């Protein structure tokens, strides 16, 4: 039969009034300071969230437009992963040619920013040049198209949107996990 291993008992727990309590008040006072700091951090995080610094809020909303006014977009510069959002493209009268609006959207909008649905549906879509060119039927300006996004790749992503032949809009979106 194996012998159980036994080691001597040392009186290692500090005593108070002859009782082994093991209080460490120096550590505890440091912990209370840390707690006060961390409650402050929690408050700052919530304030940032309300303000939109963590996406879906006032500071996250962004607008960009071309100098000639042919295209303007509303988007969120800070997105949250696996959380839906909307990017709206506003086309001016100069973007409409012969009853159609062509628009080039870079691959990053489809892949990294996770475009799920386009409203209204484009009449034609063609791939190439690092993105997709959509063709929408339009009877006159102004006209809007909405991209429903659901990003699933955290990180900083650049995208490019343009009406072919007109200046492009380039912007970046930070996707939080």
């Amino acid at each position, binding site marked *: 039969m194996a012998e159980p291993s036994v080691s001597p008992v040392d009186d290692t727990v500090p005593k*108070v*009034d002859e*009782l082994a*309590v*093991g*209080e*460490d*008040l120096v*550590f*505890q006072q440091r*912990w*209370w300071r840390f*707690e006060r700091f*961390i*409650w402050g951090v929690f408050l700052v995080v919530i304030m940032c969230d309300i303000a939109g610094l963590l996406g879906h809020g006032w500071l996250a909303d962004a607008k960009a437009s071309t100098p000639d006014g042919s295209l303007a977009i509303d988007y969120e510069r800070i997105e949250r992963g*696996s959380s839906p959002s909307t990017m709206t493209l506003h086309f001016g009268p100069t973007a409409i040619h012969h009853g159609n609006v062509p628009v080039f959207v870079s691959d990053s909008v489809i892949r990294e920013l996770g475009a799920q649905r386009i409203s209204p549906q484009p009449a034609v879509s063609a791939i190439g040049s690092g993105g997709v060119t959509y063709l929408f039927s339009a009877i006159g300006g102004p006209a809007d198209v909405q991209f429903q996004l659901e990003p699933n790749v955290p990180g900083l992503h650049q995208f490019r949107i343009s009406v072919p032949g007109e200046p492009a809009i380039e912007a970046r979106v930070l996707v939080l*996990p």
Partner: protein
Amino acid sequence: MALSTIMRAAFGYLFLVLIVRVIGRRPGEQLTPFEFVLIFYIGGLTLTGVVGAEASLTNAVCQILTVALCHYGLVLLRLRSDRVMRLLDGSPLILLEKGGWRSETMYRMQIQDTDVMNVARDHGIRDLASIRLAVLETYGQINVMPQEPETGN
């Protein structure tokens, strides 16, 4: 991605350990209704972010294994380092000693004299003056030691 689900599970566990530690220990041997609400609500909210759209059994198994490994790792660290043990468990704290309250400890731990007296009554102690030492343990329970009876000649 498999790695991101594993990282989410580990982050969720460590984040909850921090939150529960900061929220702090409260006196009492059983959870109060408030603490039930807190634990279930925080657990549920964490779950939505940790699991996300990955509702497969494979994901559940892998995330549970991740949490188990994280927990085992913390327990090992706690065992081998006094500093980690202090960080995770805190220190036992004296609430009443030699007839005097530790007022800062009482205030910071949000404990009132009635909490100490509740425990004292369980031990058959009639009043606060009959307590020699009251200690808030790391697991949230208050322990009291009665004054030793004076021995007359």
